[in-house]
């Protein structure tokens, strides 16, 4: 059995662990609140972007449609963009997303497709570099520090678009943790290229119709606007997923740290019981020694 001193050190070390995890939990909770607000603040832009793109996309059909909207018509080469966190200690957050991506990569390669990967976040970069070194085409670390910003999303999108224009891939899918609540996140694939919302906004060939029934005028012209709007839309989507992922990360960390704090508490309890018993046993033993010593006299 461990000596009293050992038990005491053990207890105090678990106690300081608990202090750290509970501090981390509180930090994560504060960050979560901010991250959630940021995700909500970004929503109006994405919604209006969608509305505008919807009224534009409905008008452009057939061969005239830009490739970003319609795709290359092929699906031989897939590009997967994986959004993970930069820091660990957040439960299964990074594990679940890299697992999902791995499954997808295996499935695609077994179908004979070519896969390329862009990883965002240090944790994801590490895993992808280890397992799919030949497939990793770009990686971004510390991108979301201290919080995701639109310029950073733009940077990633610039890379994606330039690769697409060079014909390096046909389909682009983004994998990120969607924020559902502080307790739950869901790994969500989001198809970026070709633009997947087209079907739902197809209102026919009559041209675009606003709520008041009038057709839009375009300045300078429809194609040019669409050309500028599509990459912008990609940035918005990536930015949004980064925000969601960031909020999810804080939520996951909060939950993980909450569990760790509770476990540390349980451990301290059981250790102190053991410690008290051992102490009592020792006192009894010493008393017996004294008494029997006295009796012998």
């Amino acid at each position: 059995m461990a000596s009293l001193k050992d038990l005491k050190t053990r207890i105090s070390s678990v106690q300081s662990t608990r202090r750290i995890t509970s501090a981390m939990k509180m930090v994560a909770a504060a960050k979560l609140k901010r991250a959630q607000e940021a995700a909500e603040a970004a929503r109006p832009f994405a919604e209006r972007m969608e509305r505008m793109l919807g009224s534009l996309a409905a008008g452009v059909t057939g061969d005239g449609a830009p490739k970003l909207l319609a795709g290359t018509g092929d699906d031989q080469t897939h590009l997967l963009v994986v959004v993970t966190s930069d820091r660990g200690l957040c439960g299964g957050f990074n594990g679940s997303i890299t697992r999902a991506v791995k499954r997808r990569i295996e499935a695609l390669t077994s179908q004979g497709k070519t896969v390329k990967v862009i990883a965002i976040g240090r944790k994801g970069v590490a895993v992808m570099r280890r397992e799919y070194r030949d497939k990793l085409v770009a990686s971004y670390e510390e991108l979301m520090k201290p919080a995701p910003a639109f310029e950073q999303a733009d940077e990633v999108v610039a890379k994606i678009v330039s690769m697409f224009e060079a014909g390096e891939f046909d389909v682009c899918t983004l994998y990120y943790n969607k924020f559902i609540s502080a307790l739950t996140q869901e790994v969500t694939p989001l198809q970026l290229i070709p633009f997947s919302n087209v079907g739902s906004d197809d209102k026919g060939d009559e041209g675009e119709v606003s709520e008041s029934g009038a057709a839009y005028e375009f300045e300078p012209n429809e194609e040019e606007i669409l050309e500028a709007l599509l990459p912008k839309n990609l940035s918005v989507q990536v930015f949004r997923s980064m925000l969601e992922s960031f909020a999810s990360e804080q939520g996951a960390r909060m939950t993980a740290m909450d569990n760790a704090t509770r476990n540390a508490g349980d451990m301290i309890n059981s250790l102190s019981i053991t410690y008290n018993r051992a102490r009592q046993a020792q006192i009894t033993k010493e008393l017996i020694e004294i008494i029997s010593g006295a009796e012998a006299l």
Partner: protein
Amino acid sequence: MADKVAFELVSPEKLLFSGEVDMVVLPASEGDMGVMPGHAPVIATIRPGTICIFNGNSVEKRLFVAGGFVEVTEERCTVLADTATPVEDIDLGAAQTLVKDLGEDVSHAKTEEEKAKAEANLVVAQAKLQAVETPAYR
């Protein structure tokens, strides 16, 4: 017909302005555009410049945008801006230095790509400086 335009200015980070106004003047890519109630539906791109919001006969608020898109219908006007800052928040000194620095970047650029990028940034910075120094519709 409503006698006000529901104007909204959103940047990716947040909703910057939302409210009923008499008129908005936008720096569209092919010339400034004044939007009043009952305007024909338009979708246009925006160049770097100042958005002036009119209430009554005077400018209520000026906002600098670095570019973006605008969607106008008869009742509302929505601007999707890349970045937007209220003009009163722009630091004149910082804007001046930025223009100077970027001017140097343009002349020092080694590749065509770098040069194009620096020039694009310079245009934005110059528009920003202009927004502070010589505001329109005073």
